[in-house]
């Protein structure tokens, strides 16, 4: 328990020494983010324990649970989820990828005992095709701007001591000891920080509005309801550095004058919840949360609220309803949460990543912060990259980086030399951009100019093989299900738009449908109550804008990418068919007929396009047109 500021400063200095000593010593860091854990990082960890126990080496193995004695810690996500499980050996900085249980002995024997590199486990750089010694040597690392995610492969994600050893909570101390709440707000305003949840609203203005609302009770809420399919940076951030988010929240509470906070995290993120819970308990233990923090007279406490699976709860007013234990339904604004939020009291609500920026801004000062990014969108943004690219995972780049840099220079381009057709950015509320946008510098304003948005930051790469109408259908299927049903335009509109898109992929659409779809999409955008409905038509509008020819081709009975089943025709090649009848016997719908010994034929009326006959035919006589 730290009783005052002096003690806290001393504590931080001590932790810095301890941490530096640790980094000088032999230690193994294992990434235990969700990606690496899914690939067996836990097993690798246990194997390390086992081997080290047998060898009696003094190595700190960093990992997940605290059940082990000795120094047990883990390192957070390194962003290279597709190469996991990842292991970093300090002080050499060797960076091993795809580490399996069988490789542990090798690492212990050669690296830990003799300091040699295990060549075959090093990551192969996608450009030079050579093995790279350390994380810092990878192209991936050099081309990113790690700012929120600094200390990759050298940090422990579940230890408040390690966080303080990295200079953590210094920003809080600076704020508590030498800044008035108004000064903090001025700093945030001057930094130009914009909401990382997707909308890009200037954070400082939000804080100011909450500060100015007169009330004895105020709340601070952290929005961690990352419901977008294909987005996972909030989860990554909470898993790898929960204290950073926590510190940002405490500073925010001080600035706006709040006494209580809620962190709203999806129940689908058990590891993130666990980490944040531990972070909160540790902060209470040291007296950084609770009554009279560090003897300054400022009190603030925090609890976690779990979401129970509703995409709409990412919308701020719906999220507040959900915290109150109601159905997560949005309500009209104004009044904005800054005036009347939780139970009618002024409430500040920001995204996880927005809070994570705050301690950095206080630490580095406005000028240094504004060096990153563009004048209109300062700072960095984490993006999660998925789709058929060589490196899927988390990247952090400054605003103003282009999609081409992210997809080709950092993520290594597409797999199997496929050609890129489109990029879906910002999840179901985002838009599909075409190849001509690849060189556009990404920030809030440029994306807005092409009717897209940063959204939460999910980037899904789409190759030539995917049908854009099908992409739109997929997202509408999602928003249709997730619409809360409160307002008619969204509830009925998304369902109807989905039906029209289904007609398109099932080859049943007409010119009229295309007109209706466009009209309906614009109507939903204009008339809906909340952000979900207002942005739900974006996938439709953007595909209509940049890929209209695909919709028109579907009207003519062609699916350009050849992925919509309804447009496939199965025919039997007379020359190759021997007339054995195997296909006819296996057809579930009796669509194939003929005489043994002569070529068989498929009745297109009856054919359900299941493709079973293609599999069964031993002479490769059945073709898909």
């Amino acid at each position: 328990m730290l009783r005052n500021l002096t003690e806290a400063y001393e504590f931080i200095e001590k932790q810095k020494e301890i941490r530096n000593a640790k980094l000088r010593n032999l230690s193994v860091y294992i990434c235990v983010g969700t990606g690496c854990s899914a690939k067996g990082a836990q097993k690798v960890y246990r194997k390390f324990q086992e081997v080290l126990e047998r060898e009696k080496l003094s190595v700190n193995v960093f990992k997940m649970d605290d059940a082990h004695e000795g120094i047990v810690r883990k390192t957070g996500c390194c962003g290279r989820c597709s190469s996991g499980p990842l292991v970093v050996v300090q002080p050499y900085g060797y960076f091993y990828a795809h580490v399996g249980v069988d490789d542990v002995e090798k690492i212990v024997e050669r690296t830990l005992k003799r300091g040699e590199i295990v060549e075959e486990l090093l990551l192969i750089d996608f450009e030079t095709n050579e093995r790279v010694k350390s994380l810092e040597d990878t192209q991936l690392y050099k081309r990113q701007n790690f700012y929120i995610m600094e200390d990759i492969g050298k940090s422990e994600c579940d230890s408040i001591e390690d966080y303080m050893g990295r200079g953590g909570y210094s920003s809080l101390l600076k704020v508590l000891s030498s800044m008035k709440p108004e000064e903090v707000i001025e700093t945030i305003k001057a930094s130009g920080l914009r909401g990382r949840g997707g909308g890009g609203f200037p954070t400082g203005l939000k804080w100011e509005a909450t500060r100015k609302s007169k009330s004895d009770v105020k709340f601070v809420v952290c929005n961690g309801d990352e419901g977008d399919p294909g987005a996972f940076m909030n989860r990554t951030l909470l898993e790898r550095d929960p204290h950073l988010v926590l510190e940002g929240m405490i500073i925010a509470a001080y600035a706006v004058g709040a006494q209580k906070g809620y962190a709203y995290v999806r129940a689908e993120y058990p590891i993130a919840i666990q980490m944040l819970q531990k972070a909160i308990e540790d902060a209470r233990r040291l007296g950084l949360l609770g009554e009279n923090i560090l003897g300054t007279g400022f009190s603030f406490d925090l609890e976690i609220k779990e979401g129970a699976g509703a995409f709409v709860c990412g919308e701020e007013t719906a999220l507040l309803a959900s915290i109150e234990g109601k159905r997560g339904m949005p309500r009209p604004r104004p009044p904005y949460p800054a005036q009347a939020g939780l139970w009618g009291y002024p409430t500040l609500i920001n995204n996880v990543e927005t809070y994570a920026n705050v301690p950095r801004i206080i630490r580095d000062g406005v000028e240094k912060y504004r060096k990153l990014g563009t004048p209109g969108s300062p700072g960095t943004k984490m993006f999660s990259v998925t789709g058929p690219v060589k490196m899927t995972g988390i990247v952090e780049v400054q605003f103003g980086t282009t999609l081409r840099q992210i997809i080709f220079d950092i993520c290594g381009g597409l797999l199997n030399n496929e050609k890129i057709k489109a990029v879906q950015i910002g999840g179901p509320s985002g838009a599909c951009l075409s190849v001509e946008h690849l060189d556009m510098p990404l920030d809030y304003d440029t994306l807005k100019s092409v009717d897209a948005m940063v959204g939460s930051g999910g980037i899904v790469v789409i190759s030539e093989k995917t049908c854009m109408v099908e992409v739109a259908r997929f997202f509408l299927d999602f928003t249709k299900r997730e619409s809360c049903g409160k307002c008619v335009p969204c509830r009925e509109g998304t369902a109807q738009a989905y039906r029209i898109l289904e007609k398109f992929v099932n080859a049943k659409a007409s010119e009229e449908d295309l007109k209706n779809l466009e009209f309906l999409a614009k109507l939903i955008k204009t008339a809906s109550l909340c952000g979900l409905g207002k942005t739900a038509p974006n996938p439709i509008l953007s595909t209509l804008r940049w890929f209209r020819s695909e919709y028109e081709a579907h009207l003519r009975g062609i699916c350009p990418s050849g992925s919509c089943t309804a447009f496939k025709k199965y025919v039997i090649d007379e020359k190759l068919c021997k007339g054995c009848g195997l296909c006819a016997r296996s057809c579930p719908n009796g669509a194939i007929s003929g005489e043994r010994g002569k070529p068989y034929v498929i009745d297109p009326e009856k054919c359900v396009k299941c493709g079973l006959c293609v599999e069964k035919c031993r002479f490769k006589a059945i073709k898909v047109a």
Partner: protein
Amino acid sequence: MERTYEAVEQILRKYNYRRENLVKILLEVQKLHRYLSKDVIHYVAVALQLPPAKVYGVATFYAQFSLKPKGEYTILICDGTACHMEGSMSLIKAIEEEIGIKPGEVTKDLKFSLDCVGCLGACALAPAMVINDEVYGNLTPEKVKEILRSLRGDGDAQKSN
């Protein structure tokens, strides 16, 4: 696992009978019961002094909640085209013979529940089924029976119907 109201009461007590904790309470109760029964919803509503309709409203709103009983092992039989061809129906029959439930039902001891799904995307392994996220492929009625027996963790083939 005891499914008593005493345990529900403990959860309610833990959250001080506060309405704003309704979502958390329901999540925990569901962990205990694996679904939210009518009775439990009424019980929680009375305890929090809320109309049952309000609690229903919350329970039906969020994707995490199920109002239908689920077994300890939730079996999903794939009935996509390929699996259908390879005899998924015979698997369903085998399950019925073994534990006496049809699709959409749950055994009396709540050990197993059975549902059919359109396609699991495991067509290469047809016929396939999934039990609690574990995929089993290339099944025969005999294999299914064996799997169920091993999950029941007993040699005696006690029927629960």
